[in-house]
């Protein structure tokens, strides 16, 4: 992890190959807004689907509508636990692990090298998995051979 400035060698099957470049080394606010847009649109679409379903259920009568409305908060809690709670944690862990691998690996992107000093302090503190340091040093040893 010390020789970040040496010219990068491209490997064929790196885990960060498919990550968009601006996610790893782009401006933060525009990238976040661009990443948030599809998910926001999906949430709006899901809301309209719920409204349409409630409209269809209303044809079945008051009892069916009341029963579905009774279950709805529990269902919503489960969905938000999977999507927002644990899903947000998974997205964060995957993103931080990819950033760590991308900054530890010499790649063809020169932007990452300028990105590295700014990110090195938080990423060493917020390392998502404790095994990362050893796995990356093993990776680097393999890379040097």
């Amino acid at each position, binding site marked *: 992890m010390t020789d970040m400035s040496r010219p990068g060698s491209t490997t064929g099957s790196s885990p960060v190959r498919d990550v968009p470049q601006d996610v790893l080394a782009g401006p933060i606010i525009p990238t976040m807004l661009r990443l948030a847009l599809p998910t926001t649109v999906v949430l709006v679409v899901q809301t309209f689907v719920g409204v*349409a379903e409630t409209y269809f259920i209303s044809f079945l009568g008051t009892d069916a509508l009341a029963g579905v409305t009774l279950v709805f908060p529990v269902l919503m809690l*489960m969905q938000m636990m999977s999507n927002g709670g644990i899903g947000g944690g*998974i997205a964060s862990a995957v*993103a931080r692990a990819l950033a760590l691998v991308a900054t530890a690996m010499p790649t063809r992107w020169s932007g990452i090298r300028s990105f590295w000093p700014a990110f090195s302090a938080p990423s060493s503190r917020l390392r998502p998995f404790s095994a990362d340091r050893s796995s990356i040093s093993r990776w680097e040893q393999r890379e040097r051979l």
Partner: protein
Amino acid sequence: MGAKGATLTAALTYSGIVFAGSIPIWITALLSSALRGAGNVNVPALVIFLGALILILLSPAVILG
């Protein structure tokens, strides 16, 4: 939760059916979160959008019989 009679029956039937699908819901949510974390936000959005489209088309037939 204060429900009686036909409302309770409808709620129990609906929750039995809808929570039977909770495992696919969790799998979809966790896999799409992993994709979002990897910077690919379009594939989960597309999958959920197609699911919503199928749901809108099918739900009148399924709900109203």
